[in-house]
């Protein structure tokens, strides 16, 4: 019972409180311990990276087995996964083979998915930027002005959009963003506090 419930709470509490104290107070002993904790946490975090790999293997090996080797997609996934690791470990990260995977599979595909946003952002704007009420109208106006003010051609079509964009970004925008930021930080401190004192029961996978 102690090891299962109380120990994790104590660990979280000690770690959290130590790094907080070290930040505000000039106590060399605490600061050295906080530095240790930060270093240790970076080492532990490295181990977490491996969990993802284990999960992927479990899911897709399962997929392939269930489909009696007919799930080509999961098979392709596992194959690319294995090849990438073998190349990275045995040929090294500066090898041509590894750079090939990075430059011609990872970067182009990741960038292509990201760039779907260029298309989606347009349809989302088209659908939602309708002046149905005051709030929607405000959203629409600031959105369109900034869109125009940001590009050379927009500045030609509507010259006033450039100074307006600068004003929106440095004045009008600040209040709303700041409100969201301050409120979010307060909520964030509340959750962090509950984690440190062990009230966030789900944090360590507890019941």
């Amino acid at each position, binding site marked *: 019972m102690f090891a299962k419930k109380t120990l994790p709470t104590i660990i979280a509490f000690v770690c959290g409180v130590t790094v907080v104290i070290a930040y505000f107070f000039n*106590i060399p002993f605490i600061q050295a311990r906080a530095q240790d904790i930060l270093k240790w946490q970076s080492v532990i975090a490295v181990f977490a990276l491996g969990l993802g790999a284990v999960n992927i293997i479990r899911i897709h090996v399962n997929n392939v087995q269930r489909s009696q080797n007919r799930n080509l997609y999961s098979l392709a996934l596992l194959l690319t996964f294995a090849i990438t690791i073998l190349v990275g470990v045995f040929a090294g990260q500066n090898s041509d083979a590894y750079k090939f995977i990075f430059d011609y599979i990872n970067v182009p595909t990741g960038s292509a998915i990201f760039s779907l946003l260029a298309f989606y952002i347009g349809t*989302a704007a088209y659908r*939602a930027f309708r002046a149905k009420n005051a709030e929607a109208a405000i959203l629409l106006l600031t959105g369109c002005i900034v869109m125009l003010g940001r590009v050379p051609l927009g500045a030609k079509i509507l010259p006033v959009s450039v100074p307006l964009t600068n004003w929106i970004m440095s004045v009008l925008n600040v209040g709303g963003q700041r409100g969201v930021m301050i409120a979010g930080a307060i*909520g964030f401190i509340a959750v962090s506090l509950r984690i440190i004192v062990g009230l966030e029961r789900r*944090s360590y996978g507890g019941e």
Partner: protein
Amino acid sequence: MFMEGRIFDFSALAVITGLMGIFMHLARKGMKVSIRPIPGFEAIDEAVGRAAEMGKPLHFTPGFGGLVAATFAGLEVLGHVTKLTAKYDVRLIVTVSQPETFAVTEQVMRQAYLEAGKPEAFKPEDCRFISTDQWAYASGVIGVLFREQVASNIMIGQFAAEALILAEAGNTVGAIQIAGTTNAYQIPFFVVACDYVILGDEMFAAGAHFAENEFHLGSLRAEDIVKALCIGFMVAGALLTTAGSVALTTLMAK
């Protein structure tokens, strides 16, 4: 003893956490705290109902984050959603991006099915770990949305640029969408693409809204008092500055 320039910050943190502690204690002792309606949370019933009517699955994701504050809020909602879907026999598909989050998510679902009295309804293959890579996660979730033709899509947690990709894919399959995040960069995209948005800090009220957890209710009241204090400081400080005094700004820089 204090680090230079951090006396005020420490005092602020002490006051904030102190207030939270006091109000959590008071709430525990029976102080009544009610919260204002949060439409995004109330719409969850509608989302589940729609999925039940159409006989299609409901998709939920706690986002791209690891074990951070926003993810906990998402998981709090997931617990509630799972119970509802169990009650109405709706298939629930959950996608996760980070391994640490995955472990906790699975546990939350298992527990909720158990509490709903249908432990056998939990299917491990419907709690899916996709990838730690942002775009691989996005492409995997789009795949799920399209292939499973979900009726409702709930996204609450930490999101980055993938937010709009997920929301537009959900819109394309015609799902009713509820979304929430504290990431100020991404709220605009949820506002534009989703039916209901839980704005920033509102999502931290999940525990209080669904579970009526007294610790959450208490700290929520304390948060409101802190917000009021912030506004008070701003007004006082601005008035003083305008009157030519820098007393408060100097104090806050201490």
